[in-house]
Structure formats: structure tokens, C-alpha cells
């Protein structure tokens, strides 16, 4: 009996997917750019690149920093080797790692083996990442003074890890969340032990062997106990979610969140006590869980920025803290607004005040890592009394900015105002008090009190008018 070619069927799907995506992108480009502007923009970008990187030796100024990075790359090679797999464990919380979408799955309903299709998908993924790493490595070799061999070794390591971690990530994605969390903690603990005992080489060899063993063990039963619905849902989202295009067309590609690890708990199925707060709390948890990766990226990013900036200069750190408060309050108010534009809530009447009350605890929780980073910096940088004043200033500014952004978000939901108001401008400018505190702490605190008074009067007059 002659079997149909799986490769041809797979390639047919791939070609049509590429065509469809190309068509969507083409429409997007035609709608947003015209040929003359694009040509001029390309010439401008080319000119800027040539000026900065080729004629001006811009990167030459950072020679010392590159040398520092190079020495770290040599010294920390084994440690980095143990850190790379953690990235894939982290990814397994959200992504299956093998891009089997609904189309590939449907193909397996026909006389084609899912394993064969998975092999094609994996090989394609490895080839793509190889090309990406080659391009980045070439660029790094061309524009940085870091030793070529070192760059080659590192990018080969990254690629090898990409290959070795594909199957573990796939299996971890299917496993219980506690397994993933335990493994995540275990690897981090091993890394810490490795650093403190100077045994990173041993740890990295152990992790490498563990990777190889996992691949060998799971290769045969890769497709046992697979949550296909979840795999397809996430992969469809990854393939068809085109952020720039959905932003321009205002059409969101949303994941159909059908699965929750808590759903089977009997207590979750009970009717709510008939009050706003328990109902809204559940809705917030659902929204936050859907966006957990994005939220962690933003909060984690701000946390690390505040930890790293002191190595540059104190002024830069203080400006960084001010910007972090601004970014966080913008971010948190946009998450708040997002609740009303997704799912069933969009067609319901909105009691925005009540939703806001139940959201406050989440906004405080989200700010605490950022606040912790600020607290560490404050204790190291300022004297005891100055620290107290600075923390008071930071909290006050956070409250002012958060409150202003949330009030505006509520007004926007009621279609009463545009996106920028006088109050918002005052709140934003007040963040300048953070760098000012370094030089004039008492003036800074006095202005803060004054701003509080102004905003308080503004609020009470607004309430009277309402």
C-alpha cells in the first residue's frame, strides 16, 4: 500500500500559512506606509547606521565595557550553561515549545503520523533558531571587539540548549504546575549551590546529562498524556497573534482560555456570596492569569532596572525610580481598563468604582517588588533619616500617580475625558521631586505636601461639581 507523503502535506500547510501571513502583512504595509516614505526612511536608517557604527566607531567608546563582558563570559561559562535551561522551564509555563497548531493536528487526523509531523516542526524550529543565532553572532563578531571564538562557543551553546530543551519543555508543559515550579526552584537552588561551592562545572555537567537523558527517555512516548486542546490553543495564538498588525487594525487575537488548574476545586464551583467583591475578585484573577507573563516581564524588568542602575550613577538611578513609578502606574491602569474590554464584561454595565476597590490589593502586590528594589537602594544610598524621608516621598508619589491614572481610567471608561489631563501632567511632573531629593530633600518634601494639597482641593471641587 502506498502512503501519502507527510512532508508534502506539511509543506502545503506551511506554504499556505506563509502566503496568508504575507498577505496580511502586505495589506498592513499598504495601509500604513507609502513607497516614497519607506524609501526615504530606509535611506535615513542606513545613513544613521553607517554614521554611528561604521564611520564614527561609536562602539569603540565602549571598548572597556566589552572587555569586561568578555572576561565575564570566560569566567562564568559554566554558570551560564546551567542558567540557560531555566529559561526553557520558565517558558514551559506558557508555551509547549513544539508548534503544533490546529492545522498540524488536523493533518494527524488524516493518514499522517503526528510524530513525523512533530519532527518536521522541531527541525524547522531548530533551523530557524540556527539562522537567527548565526545572524546575531555574525553581527556581534563584526561590531564588537569580543573574541570570535568565544562568541561562536556561546552561540553554539545557546543553540545546543534550544535543541536539547525542546522535548523537556514539551513534556513539562503537559505536567502539573507544581512539577514545573519544583524543577524551577531545584535548578535555581543548584545554581546557587554551584556558585557558593565553586562547583558550577560539576552542576552544569549534571544538568547537561539530565537534559540528554530526558530526551532519550521521552523520545518514544512524546505524545502520551498530551493536553491537545491546550497545546493547540496556545500554539494557534502564537502563530496568528501578530502584535503590530493587531495594534494597527485594532483587532485582537485572543486566546480562548479554556483551562484552569483550579477549576476542579469544588469550592470554586459554589455560587458566590452575593456581593460585588467576590465576583470581581474572580474576574481579576482570571485577567491577571491570562496576562501573567506580560505582567511578570514588566514588574521584573522594573525591579532589575532599579537594581542595576546604581552601577551607572545615583542621578540615573533616581531618574530611573521616578520613571518606574510612572511606567508602573500607566501599566496598572491599562490592565484595569483591559478588564472592561474582554470577555463577557464588555457587554455588561460597569461598576467601575467597585472593580477598582477589588483591584487595589493587586496593584499594591504588583508594586511591592519594585518598592523592594527602591528600599534596598535607599538603605544603601541614604542615611537613616534621609531614607525615611525618601521612602515617604516615594510612597506619596506612587499614591498620587496611581490615583490620578486610575481616576482617569475610570473617566475614560465613562467616555468623559481624553487620555491626558492637567491632573495627570501635575502627577507626572511631581516625579521630578525624586531626583531633586538628592540635592534638596526638605524642598522636595515641602513641594510634595503642596502637590497633595492641590490635588486634594481639585478632588473636592470636582466632587462638588458632580
Amino acid at each position, binding site marked *: 500500500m502506498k502512503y501519502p507523503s507527510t512532508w508534502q502535506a506539511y509543506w502545503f500547510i506551511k506554504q499556505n500559512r506563509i502566503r496568508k501571513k504575507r498577505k496580511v502583512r502586505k495589506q498592513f504595509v499598504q*495601509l500604513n506606509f507609502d513607497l516614497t516614505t519607506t524609501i526615504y526612511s530606509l535611506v535615513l536608517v542606513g545613513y544613521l547606521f553607517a554614521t554611528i557604527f561604521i564611520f564614527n566607531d561609536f562602539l569603540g567608546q565602549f571598548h572597556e565595557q566589552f572587555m569586561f563582558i568578555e572576561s565575564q563570559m570566560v569566567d562564568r561559562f559554566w554558570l551560564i550553561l546551567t542558567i540557560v535551561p531555566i529559561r526553557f522551564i520558565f517558558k514551559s509555563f506558557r508555551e509547549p515549545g513544539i508548534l503544533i497548531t490546529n492545522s498540524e493536528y488536523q493533518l494527524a487526523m488524516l493518514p499522517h503520523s503526528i510524530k513525523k509531523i512533530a519532527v518536521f516542526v522541531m527541525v524547522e524550529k531548530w533551523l530557524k533558531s540556527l539562522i537567527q543565532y548565526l545572524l546575531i553572532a555574525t553581527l556581534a563578531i563584526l561590531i564588537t571587539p569580543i573574541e570570535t571564538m568565544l562568541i561562536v562557543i556561546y552561540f553554539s551553546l545557546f543553540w545546543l540548549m534550544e535543541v536539547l530543551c525542546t522535548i523537556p519543555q514539551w513534556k513539562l508543559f503537559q505536567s502539573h504546575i507544581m512539577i514545573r515550579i519544583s524543577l524551577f526552584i531545584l535548578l535555581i537552588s543548584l545554581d546557587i549551590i554551584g556558585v557558593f561551592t565553586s562547583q558550577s562545572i560539576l552542576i552544569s555537567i549534571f544538568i547537561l546529562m539530565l537534559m540528554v537523558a530526558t530526551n532519550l527517555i521521552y523520545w518514544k512516548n512524546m505524545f502520551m498524556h498530551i493536553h491537545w486542546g491546550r497545546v493547540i490553543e496556545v500554539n494557534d495564538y502564537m502563530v496568528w497573534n501578530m502584535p503590530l498588525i493587531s495594534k494597527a*487594525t*485594532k483587532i485582537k487575537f485572543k486566546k*480562548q*482560555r*479554556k*483551562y*484552569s488548574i483550579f*477549576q476542579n476545586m469544588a469550592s470554586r*464551583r*459554589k*455560587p*458566590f456570596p*452575593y*456581593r*460585588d467583591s467576590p*465576583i470581581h475578585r*474572580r*474576574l481579576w*484573577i*482570571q485577567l491577571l492569569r491570562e496576562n501573567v507573563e506580560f505582567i511578570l516581564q514588566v514588574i521584573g524588568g522594573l525591579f532589575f532596572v532599579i537594581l542595576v542602575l546604581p552601577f551607572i550613577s545615583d542621578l540615573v538611578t533616581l531618574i530611573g525610580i521616578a520613571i518606574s513609578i510612572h511606567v508602573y502606574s500607566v501599566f496598572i491602569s491599562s490592565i484595569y481598563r483591559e478588564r472592561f474590554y474582554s*470577555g*463577557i464584561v*464588555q*457587554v*455588561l*454595565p*460597569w*461598576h*467601575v468604582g467597585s472593580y477598582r476597590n477589588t483591584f487595589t490589593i493587586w496593584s499594591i502586590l504588583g508594586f511591592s517588588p519594585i518598592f523592594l528594589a527602591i528600599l534596598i537602594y535607599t538603605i544603601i544610598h541614604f542615611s537613616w533619616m534621609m531614607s525615611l524621608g525618601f521612602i515617604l516621598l516615594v510612597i506619596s508619589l506612587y499614591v498620587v500617580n496611581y490615583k490620578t491614572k486610575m481616576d482617569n481610567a475610570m473617566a475614560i*471608561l*465613562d*467616555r*468623559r475625558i481624553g487620555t491626558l489631563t492637567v491632573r495627570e501632567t501635575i502627577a507626572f511632573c511631581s516625579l521630578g521631586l525624586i531626583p531633586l531629593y538628592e540635592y534638596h530633600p526638605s524642598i522636595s518634601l515641602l513641594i510634595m505636601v503642596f502637590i497633595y494639597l492641590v490635588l486634594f482641593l481639585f478632588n473636592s471641587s470636582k466632587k462638588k461639581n458632580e
Partner: protein
Amino acid sequence: MNILDVDGLNVQIKSTKLLENISFTIKKGSVTALVGHNGAGKSTLMKTIMGIQEKESGEIIIREKYNQDKNFLEYKQHIAFIPEEPLLMSELTAMQHFQLYGKSYQMEEKELINRVEKYVKGFELEGKLDEYPESLSKGMRQKVQTICAMLPDVPLLIIDEPFMGLDIYAVDYFEEILKEKIVKGTSIILTTHQLDRVKDIADHFIMLQDGKLLHKGLITEFETITRRSGK
């Protein structure tokens, strides 16, 4: 009293016009059927009235008082919507959805429970209250979504394809409760491909074609128009 005033409504995405200069009013207790081919703009019009779809220009006012652009939060309190595809959340059971609707429309708990009991019995959903949407069949999900919108007493009900996915008994029951609502003064806008089904309920029609309002009038005039235009 006008329950809904739509005046000079234009909706467009980039350069594509989805709705062009749509104007009509809906009186208290009146039922208007939105008719037109696929892509005529029926669902877009419903979404725009709901405030889900952004409009380019025009005014939408409920009860001659609540302007969509000026008091959106109050405006929303006066409409309930049944979408063509259920919008249920996978994190909430059927009962929890009813509670969410009850709280959103500020219903008393006792009243909510009474209505839930009545509709759940009518739609034969007993024993399914603690189920999540994914463990319900498509028809059951549609029933849950329908009950949600039937719970509050609002002046305007917007229904996109009211009978889609419902079995014959559910359709009959749904018709029955719609008639109850109409008697109480609720106005309804609905889209449907089963015109025969709504002829007994609807008293007016609005015909859309390519985003433009082609005809509007009494439902009794509708057949004459379709015969004349050969559609």
C-alpha cells in the same frame, strides 16, 4: 417615548465604511427586526449600539436621556445583549454567570434567585448550574447566555440571532419570555435569518445593505418590499 435614538451613525475601519449615515428610532415596547444579507452591517450596528464597536460619528441615545458619548456607564445600565456566539467565561459556572449579571444590573438577590429558578426550569438546565461552560453543549451555553440577558429588567434588549443553537422547545420557551418582556414595555432589536419565526413578535423592520439603511417600516410592509425588490 423613544427608547433608542440612532442619529447619523457612521462606522468605519480605516477607509472601509461599515455603516453609513444610519438613523432610526425605537419606541417603548416595540420589536424591530434587523434584516439584510451577510455582511450588511447588522452585527456591526448592534455592537456599535452596545459600545463595543467604536463609531466615527453620530449619536446614540437611550430613553431620550442617556447619550453613549456623555454618560456611557449609565447608558450601559439600560441595555442587555445576547451575542450570536456565547461570550461566557471559562472561569465562571452557569450560576456564577447569573450572579455576575445580577450584580452588574443591581438586582436584588431574592429577585435574581426567583428568575434563575424560573428560566433554568424553562430552558431545562436543571442540574447544570455548577457546571463550567466547557462541560456544557453548545446549545446549553447559548441557553445560559440567553438566561443571563433575560434576568434584568432593562428598557432595551439587543439580540443577535435569537434562536441560533437552541432546540425547538427552547425556541418556543424563549419566544414566550420575549413576549412577556414586550408586554412589560421592553423594546427589542434583533437580527435573524429565520424571519418566519420573528414575524409574530416583531412589529418593525430595518433593512440594511452594504452598511446603508435601505428600508425601514412596519413588518407588514416588509413582504411587499421584498417581493417588489425580488429579494
